[in-house]
């Protein structure tokens, strides 16, 4: 098992895949320098979000509904949106996979719902694949 620092470093490395370093080295930009800058941004994003979480807990308006909705229900809500948008096949496949996802200890993971929450947060965030002509 790796530490959080090592795992964040690995995540930075993943996001640097596909970047050409030969040309960058000529411009004085080293892989290590970019990696350091990325780690700084990653920690910045992580810490700012954690501090926001700390302040929102004390708000008088109470927790917002989506914050208390279980991630499995959020996936079902996305599936509903897909159906409304006419993507029946994707919606059915999504519900089928959600049904296959084991709960609790039987999944072999401790935090399967946290991972599902992450996927919900990242839903639709990828750049769409290039259209072929």
């Amino acid at each position: 098992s790796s530490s959080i620092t090592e795992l964040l470093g690995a995540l930075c490395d993943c996001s640097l895949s596909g970047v050409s370093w030969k040309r960058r080295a000529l411009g004085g930009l080293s892989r290590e320098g970019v990696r350091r800058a990325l780690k700084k941004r990653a920690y910045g994003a992580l810490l700012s979000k954690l501090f926001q979480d700390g302040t929102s807990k004390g708000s008088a308006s109470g927790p917002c509904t989506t914050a208390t909705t279980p991630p499995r229900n959020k996936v079902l809500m996305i599936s509903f949106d897909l159906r409304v948008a006419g993507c029946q096949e994707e919606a059915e496949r999504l519900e089928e996979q959600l049904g296959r996802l084991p709960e609790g200890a039987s999944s072999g993971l401790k935090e399967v719902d946290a991972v599902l929450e992450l996927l919900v947060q990242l839903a639709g965030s990828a750049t769409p694949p290039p259209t072929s002509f």
Partner: protein
Amino acid sequence: MASAANANMNAVRETMDVLLEISRLLNTGLDMESLSICVRLCEQGINPEALSSVIKELRKASDSLKTSENCTN
């Protein structure tokens, strides 16, 4: 003892396959390698919302790197 560990390994593998497929259907842009790292970070107690901000931030940074690379080509 060994069979229990094997059973757990199989359970993890199956769960990862399902999570990867859900990830693909939700268009999250995570590949198996990044998903595995994210799973381990969640297992370490990192808040998923905070982790999603980190991933989006890293994407912005790497996209701007790649864009500047295309401009110089």
